[in-house]
């Protein structure tokens, strides 16, 4: 691959620009479906793009006495991680037997970067409400990461012990998607709920609870930095369902993938709109005692080949 092609794949397709445009469009779908559930009309389709443009125009305030670099590192970290992840997912799905070395461990680390950036940026912003948000974000991260990792272990087991992303897709192409088994369904439920928490959607939007801590970690962000956070959110809404499809539902090499993708996104939005926000201790208990136990059952079933 020449340098130009590499740059193109990171910056335009399927990297930054493509993912950001689709991601912002998905946030519109989210807002529109939410509005329809409220029996409202909802915003026009260009709303997220207008929001983005407007935020670029606004002044970016860096709070007095906070570290400028750390404050701005927060959104950038998430943006970079999501861009790399998008390129990895697409290249692995288009060419599963390729030599591009990308494994599940790298993906798990990259998925950890946006919340890490949020924690760094939030604690750098020197705001008491932001630090409450950061501590909640940290607790929440430990809550959902445990079942998520066990689900990933289930997938590795089902793929015959390989952590190469390409092997997982090839194994599914050979023997049918992992989803069509009991442990696969359990894995999908676990990953879907962790996705909900990773996205910071209700019922797991505890770190940014608008009514109690006023946007929490985002409270001091304005202008370009806030715009970046919104783009990261949109990109995650695009990439996390794609990740779920690739590891459990046979990859997205064919056109059916679009239908599967929309199904998962609408499911996420429906969960978001039909649940109240829970407390942080309830979230921890739910993820460790409820979903955690479920994921272990899935792992045991996978050992027995179910």
């Amino acid at each position, binding site marked *: 691959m020449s340098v130009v092609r590499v740059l193109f794949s990171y910056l335009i397709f399927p990297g930054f620009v493509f993912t950001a445009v689709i991601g912002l469009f998905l946030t519109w779908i989210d*807002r529109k479906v939410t509005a329809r559930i409220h029996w409202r*009309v909802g915003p026009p389709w260009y709303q997220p793009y*207008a*929001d983005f*443009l407007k935020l670029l125009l606004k002044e970016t305030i860096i709070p007095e006495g906070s570290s400028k670099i750390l404050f701005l590192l927060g959104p950038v970290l998430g943006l970079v991680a999501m861009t790399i992840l998008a390129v990895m997912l697409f290249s692995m799905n288009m060419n599963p037997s390729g030599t591009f070395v990308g494994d599940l461990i790298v993906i798990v680390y990259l998925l950890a970067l946006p919340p890490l950036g949020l924690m760094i940026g939030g604690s750098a912003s020197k705001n008491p409400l932001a630090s409450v948000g950061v501590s909640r974000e940290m607790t929440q991260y430990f809550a959902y990461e445990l079942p998520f990792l066990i689900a990933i272990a289930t997938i590795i087991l089902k793929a015959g012990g390989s952590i190469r992303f390409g092997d997982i897709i090839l194994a599914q192409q050979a023997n049918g998607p992992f989803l069509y088994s009991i442990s696969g369904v359990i894995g999908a439920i676990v990953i879907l709920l962790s996705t909900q928490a990773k996205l910071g959607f209700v019922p797991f939007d505890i770190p940014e609870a608008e*009514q109690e801590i006023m*946007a929490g970690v985002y409270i001091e962000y*304005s202008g370009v930095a806030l715009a970046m956070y919104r783009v990261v959110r949109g990109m995650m809404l695009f990439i996390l369902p794609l990740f779920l499809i690739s590891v459990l539902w046979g990859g997205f090499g064919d056109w059916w993938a679009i239908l599967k993708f929309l199904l998962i996104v609408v499911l996420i939005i429906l969960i978001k709109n039909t649940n109240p926000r829970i407390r942080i201790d309830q979230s921890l208990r739910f993820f460790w005692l409820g979903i955690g136990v479920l994921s272990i059952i899935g792992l045991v079933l996978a050992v027995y080949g179910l």
Partner: protein
Amino acid sequence: MANAKLWGLKKSPWVFHVAAASCNNCDIEILDVLTPRWDVERFGIVLVGSPRHADALLVTGVLNRKSLSRVLRVYEQTPKPCLVIGVGTCTCDNHMFAPSYNVVGPYDKHIPMDVYIPGCPPKPEAIISGVVKALKRL
């Protein structure tokens, strides 16, 4: 380019609600506007929790010695450009509180105002039309 930015600002005004010692009726009317019945998200208007995210400040109530410094501080915390919209007769001319020793308003003595929405309290339709007028002035 400038046009595109102006379009963005007009299509997505995020409002922050500054309740500076109103009698609470104006606040309740503002909350009415945000309910599904009036659905201001059609115009991209969203209520945000932090003045750092805001493009428009909706101030309510009569300005007094205690609230003046707070209102000024919220105004300074808001990234510019931002609009300031006064909701209620109190913000226009101090209303029935004018003779009080404690009142230092009206607002335009202290911060640049863009639009006043009179009424005690104004109807939700009046508030929406006021915000639209403020956006037209951009």
